[in-house]
């Protein structure tokens, strides 16, 4: 588990025309928090997550994990990608044990845990299958299992359920809730789906359109354990109305600054 602090983080991509993707982002995430970053697509959510993961460097400002500067990508920050990004030439089992193997963990020390994680995501019977033989939801579950095996201090998830159909998506959300309520890892969860953000997170950070800043942070006080049934409660609807209003005003703000 980890504490994450962003201080005035900005990011400019120097492409043919420079793109300012993040503008002075401040964000504090306490140990064990589940934070959702919510914003329209193209606003800079992935950029922010990639800085946390170490895939990109911030152009300005400081990004800290447990007080130290975030360095290269590593197993302490497990990333779950939108398209799962499994190695298609490895079986489910080989994908799940890839991390421990790369870190030189002896087989005896990771095998039990890998088996346990496969069981947690319900894929024990598919250990020998290749990713091409799995459905999108199953692939994403492998993506989660291979990260959990490494006992990361933080889980960074970039629209992990964005490409799934509605039903699979809900099943995955429930699975993630169960897993997280057991492990209590710090989670940064990127999404453009308001329902998903409210259902999962303890706090929703609404991001403005590009260049992204964090607008308002809305704590979600729905009791845990949560389930899909919470989607229809009055409190849920109240949060949804509040966040939608916030997103609309963030959008207006961005348009007026752009003009």
């Amino acid at each position, binding site marked *: 588990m980890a504490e994450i602090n962003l201080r005035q983080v900005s990011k400019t991509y120097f492409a043919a025309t420079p793109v300012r993707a993040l503008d002075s982002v401040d964000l504090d995430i306490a140990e064990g928090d589940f934070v959702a970053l919510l914003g329209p697509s193209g606003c800079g959510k992935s950029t922010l997550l990639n800085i946390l993961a*170490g895939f990109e460097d911030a152009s300005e400002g400081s990004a800290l994990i447990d007080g130290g500067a975030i360095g290269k990508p590593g197993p302490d920050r497990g990333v779950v990608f939108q398209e799962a990004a499994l190695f298609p030439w490895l079986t489910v089992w080989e994908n799940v044990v890839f991390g421990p193997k790369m870190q030189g963990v002896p087989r005896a020390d990771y095998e039990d845990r890998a088996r346990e994680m496969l069981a947690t995501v319900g894929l024990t019977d598919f250990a020998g299958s290749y990713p*091409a033989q799995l459905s999108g939801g199953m692939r994403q579950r492998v993506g989660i299992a291979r990260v959990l095996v490494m006992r990361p201090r933080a889980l960074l998830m970039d629209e992990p359920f964005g490409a799934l159909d509605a039903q699979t998506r809900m099943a995955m959300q429930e699975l993630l809730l169960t897993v997280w309520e057991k492990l209590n890892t710090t989670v940064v969860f990127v999404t453009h789906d308001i329902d998903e953000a409210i259902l999962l997170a303890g706090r929703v950070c609404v991001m403005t359109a590009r260049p992204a800043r964090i607008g308002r942070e809305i704590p979600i006080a729905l009791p845990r354990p949560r389930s899909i049934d919470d989607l229809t409660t009055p409190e849920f609807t109240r949060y949804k109305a509040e966040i939608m209003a916030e997103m609309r005003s963030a959008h207006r703000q961005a348009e007026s600054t752009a003009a």
Partner: protein
Amino acid sequence: MSDTSVKQAAGRPAGLAAPGSRALGSTLPAIILSSNLGQLLLALILPVSVIAIWQLSGTNGSLFGGVLPTPDRVVAAWWTWAFGATGMGLNPYSGTWLANVVFSTQRVAQGFLVAILVGVPAGIWIGWSRLGAQVLDPTVQILRPIPITAWLPFSLAVFGISGFSAIFLIALGAFYPIVINTTQGARHVERNLVRAALMMGAGRFDILRRVVLPAALPAIFTGLRIGLGIGWTAVIVSEMIAVKSGLGYVLWDAYYVGRMDVVIADMVSIGVMGLLSDQLILLVERWALSWRLAGAR
């Protein structure tokens, strides 16, 4: 969709109807043509008629005033070449077919192996690292337009009349398609796969071996198949000039002494060996890339 049906579909030659299509318009000719036997019959129409016309238009076993032997004489020549008694009688080729096939095949295999051992790592380096591209790519691009036939005198001067000369040319000829296709494959590795590996603690060499190499494998196999074809061209050319054994040597020698029946039997042998070695690569490819055919969603 089960994985077996996908495998079957992938293994079926192009143009073959899927089993399901039989239900529609299942006339008798359609059924015959969609069977394996029907396919074979269709494929044989052209070669059989060419051979028949060739055979029938010959007089006294030859065409064009004795220049071209008829097919039956070619088969007879091949039979003696393959199964005749060895020893320097009237027919120096008698019984030497297998030995010559082995000579040529061995050279192709050795040159091809060298091409793989050099071409794949070089291609990975060029495709993956900017430094690799800057150091190697210009040299490869400058040397590539020189046809391997133009290297013949050079390789004779360096290696003399020997098998090395042939192996050098084969390796060089096969190297280009292998290195170029490997480069393409290594250049287009999905970015998130590399990021995922980094995130799981993979080091630089692990990334190359466990991500870039397997991701480039489909492209590498394309290069291998083209390279092997060039390897066979190179072995024949160099054996005609630089070595005194092998199918290329026999080809030229037989032409010199006017044995066109042996020349044609030799040509067919080269074709068959090229086909067989290509099938072998396809087999290895299907095994190595089985994860791609493993199934649909």
